[in-house]
């Protein structure tokens, strides 16, 4: 029982950044934007969150900075994709390169090389009384940082918004047939920008989760491909919030596996365990999709 609880907790911890970023991406993907620059956006969130928390001496200032930084970068991607109608893969790649270099430079400039970063306020674990004693459910709801709970609660919320509200109908329609929406008086650009705003927030939260919840400071390259895995999670989850949730859990399991195995007495070199999440993602992408929910106009700029 202890083992099961511990496994569930670890899986959720590992799944959270994918889930957070993935939920944001589902929304912007449904509106037609393929955002592979998410890696750079999350990196920005991770760094800005660390700086904000350290400078403002409060984790919540960190969150604010992370979100502001990520939304800014995401809106730049949005500007190039939506208004300038540039190739979305090129934009994403450029932002990843840029963010990679910028975060390293700013990190060295602010924190210096090889600093201990011992003084950054981090996310605190939250325990929910009473519930924490219930088997299994207790493991989920106790002893996690707040972003885990936010991620979990966001699944039904995003789902409800996407499928039951007016806004959600517009978002889904804009990705399927932007011209049809235009003829009905819907501003395709405005809807798309709004979804990018939302996914910027979510990617920012994912970023600061990586730096200040999973870890305790910013390290260069710490997102380690998880921005891409979040994009893959959307595909694997067939563009639905519930699907992304399952995909994030699968990834969480793969990621937690590496810690379990490293700690055990197997003689397999640790590098192979580190490879597992990436290989699992490749397998996930290979699963055949019969009724794909992929928006018909995914990654296509809308030109009137």
């Amino acid at each position, binding site marked *: 029982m202890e083992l099961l609880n511990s496994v569930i907790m670890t899986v959720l911890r590992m799944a959270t950044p994918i889930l957070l970023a993935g939920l944001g991406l589902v929304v912007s993907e449904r509106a037609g934007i393929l955002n592979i620059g998410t890696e750079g956006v999350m990196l920005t969130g991770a760094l800005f969150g660390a700086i904000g928390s350290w400078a403002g001496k409060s984790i919540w200032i960190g969150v604010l900075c992370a979100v502001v930084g990520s939304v800014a970068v995401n809106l730049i991607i949005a500007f190039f994709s939506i208004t300038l109608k540039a190739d979305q893969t090129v934009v994403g790649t450029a932002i990843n390169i840029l963010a990679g270099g910028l975060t390293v430079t700013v990190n060295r400039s602010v924190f210096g090389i090889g600093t201990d970063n011992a003084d950054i306020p981090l996310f605190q674990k939250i325990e929910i009384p009473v519930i924490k004693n219930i088997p299994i459910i207790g493991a989920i709801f106790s002893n996690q940082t707040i972003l885990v709970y936010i991620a979990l609660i966001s699944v039904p919320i995003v789902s409800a918004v996407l499928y039951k509200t*007016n806004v959600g109908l517009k978002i889904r329609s804009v990705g399927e047939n932007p011209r*049809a929406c235009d003829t009905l*008086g819907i501003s395709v650009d405005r809807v798309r920008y709004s979804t990018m705003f939302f996914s910027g927030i979510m990617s920012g939260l994912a970023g600061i989760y990586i730096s200040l919840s999973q870890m305790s400071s910013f390290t260069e390259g710490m997102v380690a491909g998880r921005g891409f895995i979040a994009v893959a999670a959307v595909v694997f989850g067939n563009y639905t919030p519930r699907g992304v949730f399952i995909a994030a859990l699968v990834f969480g399991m793969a990621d937690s596996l590496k810690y379990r195995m490293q700690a055990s007495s197997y003689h397999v070199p640790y590098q192979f365990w580190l490879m597992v999440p990436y290989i699992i993602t490749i397998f996930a992408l290979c699963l055949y999709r019969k009724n794909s929910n992929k928006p018909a106009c995914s990654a296509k700029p809308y030109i009137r």
Partner: protein
Amino acid sequence: MEFLQMNHISKQFGNVTANKDVTLSIKKGEIHALLGENGAGKSTLMNILYGMYRQTEGEIYLDGKKLNLSSPQKAISNGIGMVHQHFMLIPAQSVIENVVLGLKDNKTVLDLKSAAAKLKKLAETFHMEINPWEKVSNLSIGEQQRVEILKALFRGARLLILDEPTAVLTPQEAEALFDVLRKLKIEGCTIIFISHKLKEIMAVCDACTVLRKGETIKTIWVKDIVDTRELAELMVGKTVELTIKKEKTEVGKPVLILQNVSYQNKKKVQVLKDISFQVHEGEILGVCGVDGNGQSELIHCITGIKQASKGIIMINGTDTTREKSRKIMSRGVAHIPEDRQKYGIVQEMSIKENMILMSYLHKPLSRFGFLQSKNIENYTKRICDEFEIKAQNTDEKIMNLSGGNQQKVVVGRELSRNPKLLIAVHPDRGLDIGAAKYIQREIINTKKKGGGVLLVSSELDELMDLTDRIMVIYHGQIIETVSTEKTSLKELGELMMGIKNNVEEKNA
């Protein structure tokens, strides 16, 4: 001032003039046709009326009120609705979601149930049947068009614009549409009907305004028109020979034989069932039917893009059932595909590079895997001269050519291989009359030179003009093959709907 008054409308796109000083007056309750060739400016004018574009000059008045149509929202709130030529529907969603999309009074949480009830009531008023919960992708083209009309009516449209509404309908479905329009007229709707089909305009419209090269030429009452040639001349600006001289040629041995060919697609649907027919030297066999009855798959099986699941296909005496397209094309087969943008040309490549598409692997265009530039240049120049393709030089990107010239590149490329079998699918779709007639003449030339032609088309007039025999395809089967001389448009229309000898065929 009439109900709809568009005065001195001009529209510039950069240095291209789409509309020049156009004036349009329409009375309330009129069904008014807007006639013109492709590029005449009809769609642009209507898109201005619908708020998609903003006019460079001119004013619009509806019921006496001056309108500033800066967006479709504005147009919709003024009671203007538009049904586009390519439907503005979302196939993955239900009818009611499509109808309700973007409505101003939508609450935050959608109430689809009451909207669906409202929709049903509205549909009944116009004797239209509709299931609000059906996914649009499951509807037929005719049903989808009805959804589009209901969408506009749901938003309170008093002025309805229809852009080439019968382009994808059978004659019978078109009649059904005209009935709906007549009912709408009775209920007080004003309708603008964009078309280039002269006969339809005569059938259902009260008045007609002709546009040519962005300008209004004339507005006439339909009852004053003597025959369609008058309209055609107004449209084109010169005397138009509407009939093609059909010549009788000697019919030789078969170049294409299909025996019991069936095709099952990936979704396990029997798209083609037991098809047998022959095309002979010196003959044009037409394939007639509403889009989606298996014509595309039939052509794909013959040309090797798909493989028939049963049956035999023979070209010039050789069994080509299992062969791939490259092999088949090398057997003297030419193919003018159905959508040149999608299947016929590569937009970003030059005329030269498009011209060699089918023959680039052979001498003299390539040797030991290397392309021979000089030979390619000469080859391209020769075909451009022969087929009167207007371009500055052969390195020009093909996307800069007009639609007609692009299609001529495709036709020239295919016909200069002197095919024994020509497969032409909707060869003059989207072309103006001049280019269309040119291509039709080339098709007849192929027949005169002793080749066999399989012509797939949904333009019944074209089929009547060009072919010797016509095969009607319905639900993947050949329901009937008729001699062109002996058949009529009425008979073809019925066959296209599955009605044979006045008895409707059940799903065989």
